[in-house]
């Protein structure tokens, strides 16, 4: 917990990468964490099975916003298959911290939102929720 507010998290929170919206998004998806009111929207532009551009918007705590920023930075230019293979551990590795169950939901909201968008609602197996609960 002592390094929860590592410099990189605060940096991404205060200077988010890939923040904004896309008017020509191939897919947009929004989700919220009903416990804390964190809200993330992901706009993704896909060309030939590859994420050409991604922008996130919404509001929330430093963990959810930093995770969104790091995740977007990571997935830009990657294929959808690569994105589908991302796990919660990948997000935690990006953040570089360990989290308790409540803050874990904050950290995983961006990945959950992105994957739900990429898979399309209904097709997503939802493994993050199972692992995270």
């Amino acid at each position, binding site marked *: 917990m002592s390094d929860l*507010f590592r410099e990189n998290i*605060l940096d991404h*929170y*205060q*200077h*988010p990468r890939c923040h904004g919206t896309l008017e020509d998004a191939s897919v947009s998806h929004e989700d919220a964490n009903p416990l*804390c*009111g964190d809200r993330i929207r992901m706009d993704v532009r896909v060309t030939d099975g590859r994420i050409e551009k991604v922008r996130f918007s919404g509001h929330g*705590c*430093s963990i959810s916003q930093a995770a969104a920023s790091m995740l977007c930075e990571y997935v830009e230019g990657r294929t959808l298959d690569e994105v589908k293979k991302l796990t919660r551990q990948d997000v935690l590795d990006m953040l570089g911290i360990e989290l308790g169950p409540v803050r874990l939901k904050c950290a995983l909201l961006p990945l959950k939102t992105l994957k739900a968008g990429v898979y399309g609602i209904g097709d997503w197996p939802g493994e993050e929720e199972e692992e995270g609960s």
Partner: protein
Amino acid sequence: MTATRTGEGRATGAPSSAPVAPFDPVRVRADFPIFGSPREKPLIYLDSAATSQKPQAVLDAMDRYYRTCNSNIHRGIYGIAEEATALYEDARRRVAGFVNAASPREIVFTRNSTEALNLVAHSWGRTNLEDGDAIVLTPMEHHSNLVPWHLLAAERKIELRFLPLTSDGQLGVEALPGLLADGRAKLVSFVHVSNVLGTVNPAAEIARVAKEHGATVLVDASQSAAHLPLDVRALGADLVAFTGHKMLGPTGVGVLWGRRAMLEAMPPFLGGGEMIREVSLTSSKWNELPWKFEAGTMPIAEVVGLAAAVRYLEALGMEFVFAHDRDLVAYALHRLAEVPGLRVLGPDADHRGGLVAFTMDGIHPHDVATVLDRSGVCVRAGHHCAMPLHEQLGVPASARASFHCYSLREDVDALVAGLHETRRVFGRGGAR
């Protein structure tokens, strides 16, 4: 504290040894084992509105029940079952006395406030509300006094009306006659003390206006039964819900008080054992009050624990508990004003109970709570089960500090120090 003020003799509702002077919160705290349990940093517990801590007397009462007379109530005809039944029904009498009910039969044990409110929506609501009727609620309701009505409104055409909120977080009570004028509103249901704004609503006045218009009155007393002298008859309501775990008692037990005639006219909520008088294969006749509403084996140990909590609170004196809360909240408002960029939600100290919710410029409440946690300060962060209220206030979430009889001014000092630290960690605050 318990040794000097036992509060015994209150079981019938007549306070025979009511305290006459304020308690010493430092001595009170010594009665709560959690503060003495070993940990790295001292526990600064400022989340009593979510759940209170439990005094040794409550833990002992539950432990004693399990160790000496654990058995199912009302059925066994052997010694310990009779003992357990007596403990359980004594608890009902004690709770009745605590809220000045006319009879113990008006006290229905439930799982918590939420279940009590759902009981009313399910039983009274389905019996009395028809298409075209309306319910008056407030924007400061906990989800537990909104969602049961949403469920009912999904079944039949019921209009939900809302009292307005003033800019300082109070109810615009003067709008109530207008909301009741067409005679369609059959129920006025509202929270006595807001769990976010801390507002102490003028419950008796609201109840009086509602009754003048022929509406039934339901009060969610979750935050008030635990913190101020609650007299259900003086309140003028028909039904009052509250929960044990916020009033120094255990989780798993709550109370619905109802005027006897009101409860008599309501059909059962859950069906099962104990709530019936006669059962054939195809039909049943209900038991008398209050057992009609207590289906299945009840949380006996928890009810016994709740009685011990009531005894403890009576020994402190609820007027002194309230005065202590108010002293702390006034001090907290004064100290919080020192923190730059901090916005307090809700009214001034004169109109609130012992809690204060706030936001900080550019720092999410979750982050506030996380930094505070590093110095052992426990506050709640989120929407506190009041999403519509936060929407009205224009904030996605808030942080909340809340007090009880064991809270000290030093806790507020630790909170304020932690908030300065939070600002330091976040520099000039977040980007958004």
